[in-house]
């Protein structure tokens, strides 16, 4: 496998400046801003990570996992259990993430035999099955859930989440620049054609499914750490899956920065709707969802990229003429 993976387009340091600047600003956040503002930034980061993790799978591969929240919930639970059995707090999300990555790989064996709409229904069904079983498993606390018995550690959790965010950005960047990205996009455009051209589709699908599960679980783990408890109704909501898709769709599926932009816009509008229209916010949420899907199929970053590309093509044409 290793010898086939190579960079297909050069790494340009200039491209990385906005991200590096963003990360530097984010490092300063807990020192400069208030606790409340830091917690808002934490939430934005969490949504950005969930969006980016989903983007690896949905944006690059084009498969619709409608049970993505299962990774999130399993990650939160695996972290909670690790903390309870004595794993140090800052390590627990990573232990949880690895456990979920293993589970994701095992689940990918039967699930990735299906495609399209059937894959979507199967994953949705699986996530709901997991939620219902967690309501009833006694040693996981049933519907009451688990309590971590720690204090509210915003700054520590924030930096852990930031590290995860930075590494996920790097992973996405490398995938987009390498042959893996090309092969994933080939599968997205036409799986049969990609397969007949010699792309090992099964291998790549499993790889991104597992990777996407790993990062989603990390976000769930840090969330469990910060909220100090987990229960099925908070970490296994189908609505969370929908939120992840909104983040990706607003920003632009398949782009590197799309989910980051989507996470910022989504969380800020969500919190404003919640504060200003508490009874109506679900309704507006539903409307927002339907409108986004209808009006902006490429998302913000996707639309901008398209615009820049068209401009460049127009310029080239002009020069030739």
């Amino acid at each position: 496998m290793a010898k086939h993976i190579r960079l297909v387009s050069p790494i340009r340091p200039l491209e990385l400046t906005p991200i590096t600047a963003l990360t530097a600003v984010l490092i300063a956040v807990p020192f400069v801003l208030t606790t409340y503002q830091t917690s808002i930034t934490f939430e934005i980061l969490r949504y950005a990570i969930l969006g980016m993790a989903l983007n690896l799978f949905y944006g690059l591969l084009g498969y619709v996992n409608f049970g993505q929240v299962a990774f999130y919930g399993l990650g939160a639970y695996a972290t909670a259990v690790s903390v309870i059995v004595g794993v140090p707090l800052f390590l627990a999300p990573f232990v949880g993430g690895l456990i979920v990555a293993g589970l994701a790989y095992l689940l990918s064996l039967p699930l990735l035999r299906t495609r399209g709409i059937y894959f979507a229904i199967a994953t949705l069904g699986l996530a709901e099955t997991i939620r219902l079983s967690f309501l009833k498993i006694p040693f996981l606390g049933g519907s009451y859930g688990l309590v971590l018995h720690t204090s509210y550690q915003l700054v520590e959790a924030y930096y852990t989440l930031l590290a995860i965010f930075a590494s996920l950005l790097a992973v996405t960047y490398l995938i987009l620049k390498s042959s893996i990205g090309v092969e994933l996009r080939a599968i997205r455009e036409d799986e049969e054609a990609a397969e007949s051209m010699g792309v090992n589709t099964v291998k790549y699908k499993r790889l991104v499914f597992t990777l996407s599960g790993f990062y989603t679980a990390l976000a769930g783990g840090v969330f469990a750490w910060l909220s100090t408890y987990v229960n099925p109704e908070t970490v296994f909501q189908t609505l969370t899956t929908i939120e992840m898709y909104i983040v990706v769709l607003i920003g632009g599926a398949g782009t590197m920065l799309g989910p980051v932009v989507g996470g910022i816009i989504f969380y800020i509008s969500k919190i404003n709707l919640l504060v200003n229209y508490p009874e109506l916010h679900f309704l507006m949420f539903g409307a927002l969802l339907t409108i986004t899907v209808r009006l902006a199929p490429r998302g913000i970053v996707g639309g901008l990229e398209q615009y820049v590309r068209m401009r460049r093509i127009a310029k080239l044409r002009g020069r030739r003429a």
Partner: protein
Amino acid sequence: MLSAELLIQSVMFGFLQGGLYALASLGLMITWGVLRLVNVAHGEFLMVGAYASYWALTLMKGVAITTQVAAALLTSALLGLGLALLLYFSVIKQLAKVEVLASLLGLFGLSLIMINIIILIWTVDVRGVVLDFGYVTIGPVTLIGSRLVAFMIAIVLVGFLFLFLYKSYWGSALRAVMQNRRAAALVGINMDAIYMLGFTIGIVLASIAGGLVSWSIAHVEPFMGGAYTLKSFAIVLIGGVTNPVGILISAITFAAIESVFAVLTDPVYSMALALAVIVSAIVVRGEKLFG
């Protein structure tokens, strides 16, 4: 423990419920088969139908019981019809043409909107009207009259649906589109009309099933839809998307098993059962599932 009597009782209980499931699942079968639309809002249409019927029943207190039932049925059917046509032309017509994710998200958004409008009007309290049809005792089994009547109405409606599907031009056209849409278009079936017809029939069936639920099971709340959506999917997947007879059989079998399951264990497990059926049916049979 499960005595023989309890077993028969719970199987019969499930059997009656199966009529309602059959109605809802046949509706789902048509929207899915004809429009290739994964209608995750199916249960919410059922829920809206249940509220419509509940509302009609509260207005008709004291009238003869048959009039009440007729009025409730008519209200939920008409509301379903109106809602279906409204949504078809505003949202569904476009959604059916876009990719999987967009239609899933759009329909999920729609279900959120429906749930929250209902909450604004009726709050989250559990509603329901119990119509007194007495009891029917056959040997060791006692059947609740209202559920028996609801079952019979459901079966009569299913009978009409079968007559329509197998004996009329439009019914045959619907089945043709379900089996092979390209071939159906080639032989000159008006696809736009079929899409509208299919969606409308599917939603009206769900809405009527909801109406029957409101006075037989008499448990109506804004969040009831999700369970019906999942169970309908399970039933359709076992029965086969292009096979109405299979769906009728699987609905009744599913309801009977679920009812026994619920007596033996926790109702939550019967939901988990439905979901396990969905996942394994898709994974094991894959795309062959749909002929």
